[in-house]
């Protein structure tokens, strides 16, 4: 099997959301779950889908190290390869990883302006010009989070980024939700996102649900997928 087979089982495609980043506008997505349910794994699969289609992805990990973040990619690619048995796998990995850069920040040292400065620096030097951005570990409980998202959306327009995906932690004991069913702490900023996905434990397994998706999206909100809790890949029917 070839490289293209690696993306066939990607959550974005399985949910019919992959059209989002090729549509006219720029898209902002959010993946939510309680702590430890596998947000990063899904975020990495979304990033990988983009990388496999030759987009450059900047993975921003807040509060996580470079090595650990890198391991997510290695593990998920390894698992995908176990399923698909890709020809010349090592070469595929090499090629795909050229499309990724990881930038890590301490929880308290991240700010959108600093990220933009770094990204501009990388682009100007011709080192890495990101097409997509994934931000893992962004603090939505911070009072300034809405302003930071707006700032990043402005940056996205200016620099022609195709998409930004965020992850956010929801809490079992916080029952606040938006009209779209987006849980706290993102319930008040759900307007900022075109797509919102939620991982929730159900029937002794994990479900990936679409809480919200844009007009360009081919699926109805509410569509869900089963995830294999051991690998966080989509379960085969």
């Amino acid at each position, binding site marked *: 099997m070839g490289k293209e087979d690696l993306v066939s089982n990607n959550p974005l495609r399985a949910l019919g959301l992959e059209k989002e980043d090729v549509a006219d506008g720029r898209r902002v997505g959010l993946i939510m779950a309680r702590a430890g349910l596998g947000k990063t794994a899904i975020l990495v699969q979304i990033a990988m889908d983009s990388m496999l289609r030759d987009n450059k992805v900047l*993975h921003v990990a807040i*509060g996580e*190290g*470079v*090595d*650990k*973040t*890198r391991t997510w990619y290695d593990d998920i690619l390894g698992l995908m390869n176990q399923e698909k048995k890709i020809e010349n796998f090592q070469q595929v990995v*090499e090629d795909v*990883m*050229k499309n990724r*850069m*990881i*930038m*890590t*920040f*301490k929880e308290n*040292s*991240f700010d959108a302006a*600093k990220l933009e400065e*770094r990204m501009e*620096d*990388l682009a100007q*030097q*011709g*080192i*890495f010009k990101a097409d997509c951005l994934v931000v893992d570990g962004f603090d939505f409980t911070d009072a300034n989070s809405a302003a930071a998202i707006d700032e990043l959306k402005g940056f996205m327009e200016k620099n022609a980024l195709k998409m930004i995906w965020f992850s956010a932690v929801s809490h079992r004991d916080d029952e606040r939700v938006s009209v779209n069913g987006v849980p706290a702490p993102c319930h008040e900023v759900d307007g900022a996102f075109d797509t919102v996905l939620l991982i929730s434990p159900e029937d002794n397994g994990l479900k990936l649900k679409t809480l919200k998706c844009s007009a360009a999206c081919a699926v109805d909100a509410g569509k869900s997928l089963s995830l294999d809790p051991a690998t966080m890949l989509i379960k085969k029917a």
Partner: protein
Amino acid sequence: MSVDLSNVRNIGISAHIDSGKTTLTERILFYTDRIHAIHDVRGKDGVGAKMDSMELERERGITIQSAATYCTWKGNNINIIDTPGHVDFTVEVERALRVLDGAVLILCSVGGVQSQSITVNRQMDRYNVPRISFINKCDRTGANPERVTGQLQDKLGLNAHMLQLPIGLESELEGVIDLVTMKAMYFDGDNGETIREEEIPADLQDAADEKREELLDAVSMFSDELMEAMLEETEISTEMVKEAVRAGTLALDFSPVFIGSAYKNKAVQPLLDAVEYYLPCPTDVENLGLDLEKDEEEFPVSNDDEDPLIMLAFKLEDGRYGQLTYVRTYQGTLNKGATVYNTRTGKKVKVGRLVRMHSDEMEEIDSCGAGDIVALFGVDCASGDTFTDGKLTCSMSSMHIPEPVISLAVLPADNKAQINMSKALNRFTKEDPTFKTFVDHETGETIISGMGELHLEVYIERMKREYSAEVQVGAPQVAYRETISTRAEFNYTHKKQTGGSGQFGRVAGYMEPLEEGEYEFEDKIVGGSIPREFISSCDKGFTKSLLKGTLCGSPVTGVRCVINDGAFHAVDSSDVAFQLAAVGAFKEGYMKAKPAIMEPIMKVAVEGPSEFQGSVMGSINQRRGMIIGTTEEGNYTVVDAEVPLSEMFGYSTTLRSLTQGKAEFTMEFSSFKPVPKSVSEELVKKYQDEKKEK
């Protein structure tokens, strides 16, 4: 000499360059009465620290070889291996970790967790070594042990918690608060040898209470007794806390953090107490041997003095006392004069003298028991060999030894230098498995190879100083490899009839890339088209061909050769004929199998002020490097990248000028990867030109 093993600690001291581990060891030896005066690493008194026994180490202020030492603290026997900090010497660190039961990770209170700390920590993980951390240099400007503890959690993923709080910091450092006993400790006297215990200063009481709560929360899960006491709000004894910390540490689920300043003689003794309380004794850890009679089945060693002897040679040294072999005994007792068997070579050796090493001095002993680390005299073996008393056929698990990545030619100045150089190389290769040497038969040059520029530089210096071998050194060369990318068939006949007995052999089959390992040979001959006695000749012929690939003359790896047909002649076929036929077959198949040149790729970490991040990344990009990621750490940024070794020569100078000397980098071998086409063409052309010149 049977000792209670619960009173034995075999520990290693590991850290990033210049974190002060040799200084710390010097203080430990002083407080345990092994030495009677303290000398600094780069001391003005010219004596140098005790553990830096090599002249070169004292001069450069870095530890090159690890020396083993022994001391006694409050009735406990502590064997300490002082390990080198530079990444080029990590085989020393790895060997030390293989034989030690616990380790102390030293960190600088300003520099914090640096790239080498990450490497060392990874090695400790590999060998399941419980560890405690010591944040040293708390007297330095900018000292921040809390930040460093945070880094231990974030960067190393350790469940690290401070067991002490500093009383003052930087130049104001006075002592520490012990969060287990809730006492303040001060270190008086000229060398901090007198410990004064007092009540916690009033202004620090709240902070101490808060930190103790955090500590108890973190360790309570390792002790039901402590958990109950906390829930029921009954009295929590010191012993209860110590037991919980110990249990968590041994299970590798908790890592206690201590603070101090070795240079200023502050809080070294509590660290020694911690070694006793929290690090394992030999019976606390499970060491596995491999039963060679049962297909290397793993079995736990017993740690019992009465059982048959098993010991591992983990370090060789050929010093002024003759050949010394450092061994760790895993079970049984070794007596002076006993005969032991090397399970690798099957040879038996008599142990003439048995000594306990104290850096470059030694104590004669008559016997040693399970868990001990001692040195033997006059035992010929290689590093990593296992010895038994002949009752067992086993081996301790093999050690992870990386392949050399850099080589250079050495040319002796005269005949005398030639003889001395041979002696030196013979010794170095025995001592250090990552250091290799061979003679290039085409050029007649002696080539040495190792893990980095500094690694080889140090051996050249040692050749000059210790063996008076004056040598000229060529430019460093990258150790390229060749490999094949696809399966290819071969069918080659070697025929020679030029008078006398002729030569005839035909070898047919295929070669294919091998995912793991260097070379595999498979015989699929049916019907005797190649007689049995010549099968091994084919293997030999292929093995010979692997030594030098045809692209750039580098060794060929990752090849599986399968023979499935052939032909022979009743008179003219011979071992040589089939070897030559296999060489021809290899050549034929190799060119069809899309050969490629592989180069060593180094994992590089550059650490420096964030303002230089752009220039650092630019410099890596220019060197065909792939930037993996960046880590923002306050005003500092670490750039992680993978860069071909061939592009890293002279990088330290570039980096210095780019960053006004404010950034530093470390690198270690990561993997071999194919070189880009342009580089490959250049290497092939260079090799062809060199061949023409000869």
